[in-house]
């Protein structure tokens, strides 16, 4: 049977068919939908882990316990999970283990553009690179055979366009795989130096065997047509080359990309006049090919910045791209993403943005948008869970050097559970005066509303232990802790005033209001007033001062002709932040007085 699947859906299907029993992940674009789809198969135990390191560790444990296991993450997630992964590569698997690493060329939804193919080489593990949804399924199934044959974890490296493109996929059946009974093997699994020193030789030998496998892998194959141009390509870059050049070139399609099949590439290079390496981001294959003494073009014609597309590949290899018409200047202005109408982060950013001598450290999530005009509240960000520790270092530097600035750091609830607990521990233990704000919107927002340890539900939507943010904060030794409704601007302001008044102590503010886009739980309905009656502007009262526009709410419009504000009723959810900002009380809820 054939079905239209995204790459992420096809990976989930591949895991089902491969008889995988355990899957864990932390959400992150573009890999999020893998676990969401795995959760639909009852045959596979699935879970959201608090972070990628924990997800990989849990998958390692499941593998050591004897079953086929899996973890998924976006590329920055592998930075977090790299610690257990490097050592697991030495120990080797018991039940087969594979993980998806999803890179984001073009940084559609990421803070850097790292090329994680380099990790496979550094970890000395093998790597598969699917180019479309069918290969996602096929390679996932094969990954477990390879993993168990060579006792190696397998990295499946995807990119945004492979994750989020849909194409037809031929489905197969699930093959149940019996668990491998656990046997104590200290000389392999107990990672003390004496054992690891021995394992060092074993994985060196394994890498030689994987090289041999790569030379014969069915995922590395030639397609011979016209031989003037020869293309070595992996992942979606192969599809771009194929689209542009068709039968006018010959191809060596690389699907098993670490270790590279260097001898196969050498043989292919002898059959073609000019060899091109077409790869997204870094010259990972090109460097290895050139190091093997094979002459080729690569990053001299194909850019290493941003994602590729057929036009870029055509321009690089043929010297000219597809003709197009230019558009007259001034027909469009930027449209950056913005906090949604009714977003509970707006009240916090609005009140904070007004304060002087403040440095605001943000984090990864929707609140990363708090730096844009008109809120203009954020100075900088880092990585998941970093805001409080970066804030602590800055606070220290400011007080040491006499710079009169107060540091406010913020992150969301899911980010707090991810690695923010560690950075708040730093603040508490080392007596930082950083004002730490946890923006608790009762869900993981940016990636599309995944449950987390603070939500009270698991990946399947079943009730589970709810870990209370405020109690965790108290348990970390913080004494100045207040929880506030961020949609109430007077309370938000008063809470910030209180925090600023505690000049030499750590302070934590928890803003607590559910994300306006989330599916509200029974508990949400009981705790919060979720009346979404929209607001309206009383034209008679509106003086056209545009104060409401400084909240940056996308439901507001300013009518230049009448010099009055308007609210798009279908977009407004009645958070009343603009109503509290209005100096003449011209905004109220429809039907309310």
């Amino acid at each position, binding site marked *: 049977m054939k079905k239209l699947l995204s790459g992420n859906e096809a990976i989930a299907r591949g895991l089902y068919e491969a008889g995988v029993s355990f899957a864990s992940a932390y959400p992150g674009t573009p890999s999020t939908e893998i676990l969401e789809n795995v959760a639909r198969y009852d045959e596979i135990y699935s879970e959201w882990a608090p972070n990628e390191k924990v997800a990989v560790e849990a998958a390692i444990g499941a593998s050591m316990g004897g079953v086929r296991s899996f973890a998924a993450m976006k590329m920055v997630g592998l930075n977090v999970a790299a610690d257990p992964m490097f050592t697991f590569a030495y120990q080797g698997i018991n039940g087969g283990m594979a993980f998806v690493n999803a890179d984001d060329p073009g940084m559609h*939804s990421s803070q850097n553009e790292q090329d994680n193919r380099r990790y496979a080489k550094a970890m000395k593990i093998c790597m598969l690179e699917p180019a479309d949804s069918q290969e996602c399924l096929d390679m996932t199934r094969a990954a477990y055979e390879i993993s168990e044959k060579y006792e190696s974890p397998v990295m499946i490296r995807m990119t945004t366009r492979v994750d989020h493109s849909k194409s037809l996929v031929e489905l197969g059946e699930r093959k149940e795989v019996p668990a491998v009974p656990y046997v104590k093997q200290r000389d392999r699994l107990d990672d003390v130096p004496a054992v690891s020193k021995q394992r060092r030789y074993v994985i060196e030998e394994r890498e030689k065997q994987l090289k041999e496998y790569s030379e014969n892998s069915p995922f590395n194959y030639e397609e011979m047509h016209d031989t003037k141009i020869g293309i070595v390509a992996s992942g979606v870059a192969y599809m771009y080359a194929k689209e542009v050049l068709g039968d006018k070139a010959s191809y060596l399609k690389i699907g098993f990309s670490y270790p590279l099949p260097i001898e196969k590439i050498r043989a292919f290079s002898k059959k073609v006049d000019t060899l091109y390496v077409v790869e997204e981001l870094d010259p990972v294959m090109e460097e290895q090919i050139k190091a093997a003494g094979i002459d080729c073009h690569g990053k001299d014609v194909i850019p290493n910045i941003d994602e590729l597309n057929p036009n870029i590949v055509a321009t690089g290899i043929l010297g000219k*791209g597809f003709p197009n018409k230019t558009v007259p200047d001034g027909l469009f*202005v930027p*449209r950056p993403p913005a906090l949604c109408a009714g977003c509970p982060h707006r009240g916090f950013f609005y009140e904070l943005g007004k304060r002087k001598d403040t440095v605001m450290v943000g984090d990864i999530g929707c609140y990363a948008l708090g730096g844009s005009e*008109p809120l203009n509240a954020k100075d900088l960000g880092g990585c998941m869970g970093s805001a409080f520790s970066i804030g602590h270092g800055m606070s220290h530097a400011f007080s040491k050097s006499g710079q009169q600035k107060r540091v406010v750091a913020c992150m969301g609830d899911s980010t707090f559970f991810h690695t923010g607990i560690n950075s708040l521990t730093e603040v508490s233990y080392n007596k930082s005066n950083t004002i730490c704000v946890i923006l608790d919107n009762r869900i993981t927002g940016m990636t599309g509303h995944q449950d987390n340890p603070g939500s009270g539900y698991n990946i399947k939507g079943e009730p589970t232990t709810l870990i209370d943010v405020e109690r965790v904060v108290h348990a970390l030794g913080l004494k100045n802790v207040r929880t506030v409704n961020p949609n109430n601007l007077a309370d938000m302001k008063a809470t910030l005033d209180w925090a600023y008044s505690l000049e030499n102590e750590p302070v934590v503010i928890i803003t607590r209001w559910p994300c306006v886009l989330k599916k509200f739980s029974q508990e949400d309905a009981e705790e919060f007033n979720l009346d979404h009656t929209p607001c309206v502007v009383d034209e008679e009262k509106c003086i056209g001062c545009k104060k409401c526009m400084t909240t940056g709410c996308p439901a507001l419009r300013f009518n230049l002709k009448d010099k009055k504000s308007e609210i798009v009723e279908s977009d407004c959810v009645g958070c009343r932040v603009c109503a509290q900002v209005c100096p003449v009380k011209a905004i109220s809820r429809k039907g309310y007085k």
Partner: protein
Amino acid sequence: MSDVTNVLLVGVGGQGTILASKILTMGLIENGYDVKMSEVHGMSQRGGSVSTQVRFGKKVYSPIIGEGMADILVAFEEMEAARYAKFLKPDGKMVINRLCIPSLPVLSGQVAYPEHIIESLKQDFPVLDLDATRIATEIGNPKSANVVLLGALVQALGLTNLDWSDFISRTVKPKFVDVNLKAFQAGREAVANR
């Protein structure tokens, strides 16, 4: 790629471009085409500029196109039509929804929303413009504007010999079948004979 048709759907996060693309893709598959559809998730969905691509033909390799490759651009919003116009082939055409959604820099007064976008684009491109939101509202559900635009797209592509009504009936929830069929038909009529 000579036998492949490239459709680029653009708009503002939350306008339903992905749903329209999905219906189009499923319909094309049912009718025997090889199809690849590509969408972007994550941060840009928060009110940013979004694009979805549908490529169909006998055999499709790349899931995305680059500049100068689209046969047709369907813009759910006027300014987005201009932003993505460079992706059209020199003989490519546009379907534009007569709708202006100001972006954050416009709302905060940093820049003005550009004027006369459709008129300017008409100087260089064949443009079929329609007020999908008004049409959808008249039919009874403003949210079906995306299906109005889908109808206009199908008409503009000349894919009218395929049985779309049967497919739409089987795709949407029973209580929305009537309104969506009407929306689809109205979209087709809005650009027919132009």
